[in-house]
């Protein structure tokens, strides 16, 4: 028996200036930034602030570029790798704000390691420690933290977003927070791949934002996969920088120059992916010198948990590997940002972290852990400040109008709910189109057309008939979010008739100069795709 049960009459109803949805780093930074501006802040997360998201279980580098003359050159070099879609102005302001927040962490007493000369090394954040530390900072800032309070939908008064509602899944009642501004920091969509953070990262914010009228950007860039021991959750590529790779018969997998592959990350993932489509692949971390082996073990302890528990010595034994799909978590698609304060174009709605489109930061290539981590440090800060400013401007008008809940698919189906349309089957059907290597790592127009047809059929069932009751409300909404994200991704991939970065079209290799711009997708049931629109450079909502 659960210890606490509440009846419907115990429903939670709060008021706040700023409501942050999410429990990862960008949510924490948004909450701290808004509270620092004097806003009353509530943070509602699906899981637990401190363990939720992709960062908490990981050990992540940051893109840490100290101020100085060199900064422009570093950004320029990184931009060269982004498939021409990133924006150097955003990259520069991101490294600037991220650096300041890393210093803030150091001032607050986060236990960074030291370099040999005694200086703190602030360019790396150990996930469990970092997020536990951030939880304390959020609480110290006076934020009301609602753990295990998944949001189901946004609320609108017709002019602006004025809060959100959901279920308190452990207490068993509904919740609603009326707020003058909302920050979506709900993370990316991992399409339920079993990766670190993957269970909760179902793209909920994308669907909520799109229902409110926001656009998404770069949803075709979901072709990032990372190596992991077979069957494990450890989508951490770093140790495979020093590995050899072999087929079932023991023959080595060769790199593009015909030499045996000795580094499986970055562009070399293509060779591993090709081999994995043919059959099982095995690896051994035999390119790591003994000193490096020790640093890897001590510095990346989570990566070694699967080996130790399975009784494998990865430096001498061959072990089976897989490529884990990472959707928009390490992909770059997400909610389109329209101004420097991370506004979405929908009044009162802001976005941070992986919920936001990151093409402006890293274009058509993955930002990996480092860029995404710095992006969370910076975008969380801007979104929190932006939401707080919006809340102040709206003070007189807040909480007066009639409030409409905006949730549709998975929550309020268009036709009669049907018990035979189940969340788990919807997710499996979507996964079948957007995770297999031969459909999504290597794409083709014909394959995408077929996937699109199947996803349209899945979507019609979701739109018209999917609904969960009680605890299954969240599951139904997650399935609807995954279905929407899959559909947007395949539609955008069909629209991008070229190859660029992680979008690899076998039928259209090579970049097309005419497509050196972002693709913006707008609408839920009926949607349209456009090239990057011209827009004013600076415009607050």
């Amino acid at each position: 028996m659960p210890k606490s049960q509440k009846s419907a009459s115990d429903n939670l109803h709060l008021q706040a200036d700023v409501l942050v949805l999410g429990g990862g780093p960008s949510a924490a930074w948004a909450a701290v930034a808004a509270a620092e501006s004097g806003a009353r802040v509530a943070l509602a997360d699906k899981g637990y602030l401190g363990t939720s998201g992709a960062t908490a279980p990981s050990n992540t580098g940051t893109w840490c570029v100290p101020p100085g003359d060199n900064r422009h050159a570093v950004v320029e070099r990184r931009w060269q790798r982004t498939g021409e879609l990133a924006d150097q102005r955003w990259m520069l302001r991101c490294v600037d704000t991220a650096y300041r927040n890393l210093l803030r962490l150091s001032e607050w007493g986060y236990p960074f390691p030291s370099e040999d000369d005694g200086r703190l090394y602030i360019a790396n954040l150990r996930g469990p420690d970092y997020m536990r530390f951030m939880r304390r900072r959020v609480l110290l800032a006076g934020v009301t933290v609602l753990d295990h309070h998944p949001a189901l939908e946004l609320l609108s008064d017709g002019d602006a977003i004025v809060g959100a509602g959901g279920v308190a899944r452990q207490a068993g009642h509904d919740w609603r927070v009326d707020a003058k501004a909302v920050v979506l920091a709900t993370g990316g969509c991992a399409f339920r791949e079993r990766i670190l953070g993957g269970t909760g990262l179902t793209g909920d914010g994308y669907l909520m934002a799109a229902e409110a009228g926001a656009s998404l950007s770069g949803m075709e860039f979901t072709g990032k996969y990372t190596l992991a021991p077979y069957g494990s959750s450890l989508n951490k590529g770093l140790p495979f920088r020093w590995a050899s790779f072999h087929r079932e018969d023991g023959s080595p997998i060769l790199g593009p120059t015909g030499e045996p592959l000795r580094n499986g990350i970055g562009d070399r993932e293509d060779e591993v992916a090709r081999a994995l489509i043919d059959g099982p692949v095995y690896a051994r971390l035999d390119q790591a010198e003994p000193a490096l082996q020790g640093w890897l073990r001590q510095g990346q302890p989570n990566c070694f948990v699967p080996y130790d528990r399975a009784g494998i010595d990865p430096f001498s034994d061959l072990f089976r590997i897989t490529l884990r799909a990472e959707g928009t978590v390490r992909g770059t698609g997400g909610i389109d940002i329209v101004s420097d304060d991370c506004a979405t174009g929908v009044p009162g709605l802001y976005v941070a972290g992986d919920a936001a489109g990151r093409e402006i930061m890293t274009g058509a290539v993955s930002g990996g852990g480092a860029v995404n981590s710095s992006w969370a440090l910076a975008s969380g800060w801007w979104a929190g400040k932006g939401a707080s400013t919006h809340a102040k401007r709206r003070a007189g008008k807040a909480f007066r109008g009639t409030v409409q809940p905006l949730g549709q698919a998975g929550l309020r189906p268009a036709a009669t709910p049907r018990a035979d349309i189940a969340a788990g089957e919807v997710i499996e059907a979507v996964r079948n189109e957007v995770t297999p290597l031969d459909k999504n790592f290597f794409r083709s127009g014909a394959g995408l057309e077929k996937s699109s047809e199947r996803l349209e059929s899945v979507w019609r069932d979701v739109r018209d008939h999917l609904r969960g009751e009680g605890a299954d409300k969240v599951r139904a909404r997650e399935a609807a979010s995954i279905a929407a994200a899959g559909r947007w991704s395949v539609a955008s991939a069909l629209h991008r008739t070229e190859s660029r970065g992680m979008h690899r079209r076998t039928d259209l290799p090579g970049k097309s100069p005419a497509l050196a711009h972002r693709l913006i997708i707008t609408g839920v049931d009926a949607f349209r795709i456009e090239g990057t629109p011209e827009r004013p450079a600076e415009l607050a909502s």
Partner: protein
Amino acid sequence: MIEIVSATRCVECDICVKVCPTNVFDATEHGAPVIARQDDCQTCFLCEIYCPTDALYVAEFAEGPTGITEVEVEERLLFGSYARALGWARGKAGGSQFDPTHRIRVAQ
């Protein structure tokens, strides 16, 4: 995924119920929490390190249970092994100041 809540080690603090980001556990009226939604486990190992008595075991296979027994986990000294590798102890954070990852990044 999560496979074992050791009734002999557990002190019924229910911290795992609170910190699991995917709501895998249910607290019980009298006794250790139960694994109520095993398939939602994302194999992040975080419940293990938050547990003050190293009473939880998450097996390495993320796709389904392996069936490993508590006896084997005890014999192989696997209870609390991830927390020890990090430098966490009794559910408290520690050890990040000794993280040598910067050396790996230089080697990379």
